[in-house]
């Protein structure tokens, strides 16, 4: 007989408040190390000045508990639920949404959600929530009795530079890589480079996009991947950075800090490729309850 573990609403709620309380004022330590590295190799004086500003901002924000960016984004959560887990007192969505609403008030974060996407369809186009702030939740099952939450605060500027293309299954690696490089490079300074590039390959239309988002989350490479994909990531990172768009699109050696690819099987007629971009204000965290 399987032992079912009950996780209370309070445990989840508290864990989310705590997790978002950590990330709104600090990028992941891995990100800060990468920005430091970008500064070390940079030769352009403006790019160096900007990278130094980013590092100083990280320090100040963490010390004074201030948001690293005014856009604390939309909250995206990947919840991997153990098959032996039961959630007590409420749906996971409502618990997360309540925690997000409360943590937003606690830290004076900006309401950045338009409840009605087509603003002129609403008599109150700046309405951001009814009582609870909307969040984006992706659920999946994992073996065991733990609940894993991968949480991200996803800003709008970088998200807007994301794209998806349904390739033919015979598309060459070069065609796919050109599409990815062009997407990142033509975004210029809009997604606040240096950026993270999350790539989904395969699945269907929506799974591909979800893979690209998941590819941005920490731990950044939790999935087994073929050496071919690792090589492709390296090639893409080099190609993107060689184009020299640089820090904030103002030139420099580093446009992207990391490229991460996730893949899934797909239909014989298709080869979907999705690119999701995140900025240097890379706010994500993984927690296990």
């Amino acid at each position: 007989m399987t032992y079912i573990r009950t996780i209370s609403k309070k445990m989840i709620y508290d864990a989310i408040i705590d997790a978002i309380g950590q990330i709104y004022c600090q990028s992941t330590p891995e990100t800060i190390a990468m920005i430091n590295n970008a500064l070390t190799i940079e030769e352009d004086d403006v790019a160096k000045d900007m990278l130094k500003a980013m590092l100083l901002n990280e320090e100040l924000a963490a010390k004074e508990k201030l948001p690293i960016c005014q856009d604390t984004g939309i909250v995206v959560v990947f919840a991997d639920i153990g098959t032996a887990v039961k959630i007590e007192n409420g749906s996971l969505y409502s618990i997360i949404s309540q925690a997000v609403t409360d943590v937003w008030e606690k830290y004076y974060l900006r309401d950045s959600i338009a409840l009605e996407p087509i603003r002129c369809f609403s008599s109150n186009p700046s309405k951001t929530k009814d009582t609870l702030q909307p969040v984006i939740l992706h659920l999946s099952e994992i073996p065991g009795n733990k609940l894993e939450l991968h949480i991200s605060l996803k800003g709008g500027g970088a998200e807007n530079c994301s794209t998806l293309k349904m390739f033919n299954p015979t598309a060459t690696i070069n065609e796919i890589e050109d599409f990815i490089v062009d997407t990142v490079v033509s975004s210029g300074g809009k997604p606040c480079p240096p950026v993270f590039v999350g790539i989904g390959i395969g699945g269907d239309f929506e799974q591909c996009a979800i893979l690209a988002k998941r590819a941005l989350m920490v731990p950044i490479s939790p999935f087994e991947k073929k050496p071919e994909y690792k090589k492709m990531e390296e090639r893409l990172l080099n190609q993107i950075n060689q184009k020299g768009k640089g820090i904030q699109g103002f030139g420099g050696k580093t446009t992207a800090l990391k490229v991460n690819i996730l893949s899934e099987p797909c239909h014989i007629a298709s080869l979907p490729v999705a690119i999701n971009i995140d900025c240097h204000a890379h706010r994500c965290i993984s927690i296990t309850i």
Partner: protein
Amino acid sequence: MRIINIELPLKSEEIKMFTIRDKLLISGVLYTARDQAHLRLTQLIKEGKPLPFNLADSALFYCGPAPTPPGKVCGAIGPTTSARMDKYTPLLLENGLKVMIGKGERSRVVTEAIHKYNALYLICVGGISALLVQSIVSCETFCWKELAAEAIYRMEVKNFPCYVATI
């Protein structure tokens, strides 16, 4: 990289002195405006109505601030993507706008209008809110409060760091 201290409003002769990639430390008054405020400003101009402030006297900052925590001068601030304002910008430039602050590239049409009207587009590093708030002297909702973060805020700044992108 040249670093230049400037006071708003800028005189036309001053704009000519800058070159691309100069770092400017700005002091003076900025008005924030994002998508919805641009929509309204444009409507007012098209209807021949007066604008809530004089475009020539200050700078537009593409920014939606976070709420101000108690005891602080302002909440988190920073630039939003300028390209979203591109379709409204030529009309604003025609009506006296001189300085814009945001992030990312502008369209060809806006770039040409910036040249034509002898205006200035500056970029400000995105994602450095904690650092930028140190340059804010005051911040208050100026008009269209119902737009919340998208309202127009009047910000007094001191040595606010930007870089010349289009001139």
